[in-house]
């Protein structure tokens, strides 16, 4: 912030962060700054920023005129809100009953082993976040999971690992890879 770039842009263009805040403001306005819209506002914030950091929570608490601890309490009560940034790819394995009895636990264990991680965390290279979810409601496809939002049904540990690996390798730029 203290450093000035050699050729400062002269335009009045807003930074990505400001643009995102604008989006959040839109939701705030739509909800007329009602305090009961907190969860909706947090949904929007999570969608736009990817996760909820302290600055955003503070901003929401000021805008909705709610105590900061209240906002923090709500944001951490619900599974959906993440206070940590997520990886480039997100794999959500359904651990509902139907998926569980059909072996979803083995899928999670295999990914954990293959990528040296624990469910609910992100790999150290930030490539993959693994989440085990409570029933995604696609029980007829058991065991199922979503990879970056797309649904994969009737999986096995092998097919899942293959799909995740393919996803990761397809997105990584060749020049980026270092040995």
């Amino acid at each position: 912030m203290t450093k000035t770039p050699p050729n400062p842009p002269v335009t009045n263009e807003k930074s990505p962060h400001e643009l995102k805040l604008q989006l959040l403001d839109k939701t705030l306005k739509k909800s007329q700054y009602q305090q009961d819209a907190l969860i909706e506002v947090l949904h929007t914030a999570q969608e736009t920023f990817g996760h909820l950091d302290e600055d955003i929570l503070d901003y929401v608490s000021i805008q909705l005129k709610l105590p900061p601890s209240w906002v923090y309490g709500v944001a951490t009560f619900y599974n959906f809100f993440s206070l940590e940034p997520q990886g480039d790819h997100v794999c959500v394995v359904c651990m509902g009953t139907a998926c569980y009895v059909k072996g979803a636990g083995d899928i999670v264990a295999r990914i954990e082993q293959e990528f040296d991680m624990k469910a609910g965390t992100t790999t150290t290279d930030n490539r993959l976040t693994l989440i085990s979810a409570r029933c995604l409601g696609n029980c007829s496809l058991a065991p199922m999971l979503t990879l970056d939002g797309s649904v994969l049904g009737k999986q096995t540990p092998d097919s899942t690992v293959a799909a995740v690996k393919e996803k990761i390798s397809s997105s990584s730029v060749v020049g980026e890879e270092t040995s």
Partner: protein
Amino acid sequence: MSVITLTINGELVSARSGQNLLEAIRDQGIKLPTLCYLDGLSTRGGCRLCLVDISGYPRLQTACTTTATEGMVVVTHNEKINRYRKMILELTFAERNHTCAVCVSNEHCELQTMAAELGMDHVRYDYLNPQLGIDISHEKYGVDHNRCILCLRCVRVCDEVEGAHTLDVRHRGINSRVITDLNRLWGESESCTECGKCVEVCPTGALFDKGMSVGEMKKKTNFLRRILDGREKNQWNR
């Protein structure tokens, strides 16, 4: 104020209409254990120790969240209720690290007293032994989460009486923790008014005045009733 009649443990007694059942029972000189209830704060029904049997209800009810009504037939103690209370208290002890011998509130602790009163001499469940921190960043007070029983008297007094709402709870279930502002250190809190009400209402040694040694921390809660009566009944008109 009209008077109602109800039966408590087989005796006909009278209570004020609209009175909280727990208070009505205590007015009869009956000892009903509670940890989360505190006269003057909103009721929560979380510690489950004041469960009583009320005729006509399919389940045991917490007296603190029930309004006494005309003709109510209440049993406050029987073999089953006593057993349940003891088991619930054991669960409370198993949850965190309640080591009385090294606690600032030793011998002045509501949890400790309760265990003695209910005759809880051992815990049959696994101690969960969580590794929880102590926050002594505040100039005057400290919080030891190992001794917190999540009664949330502190959260309620901060919100309802002091009006600061510095404290709240993060996460849920077994991972619930009392937090300050955006989960910051207490000493860095912007909203804390340093009034110390939370420390006084805390039933255990979780919240304490800094500088206290083992057994030195005594809490007084009688300020609460006086402040509230002063406010609510306009006794302090200037």
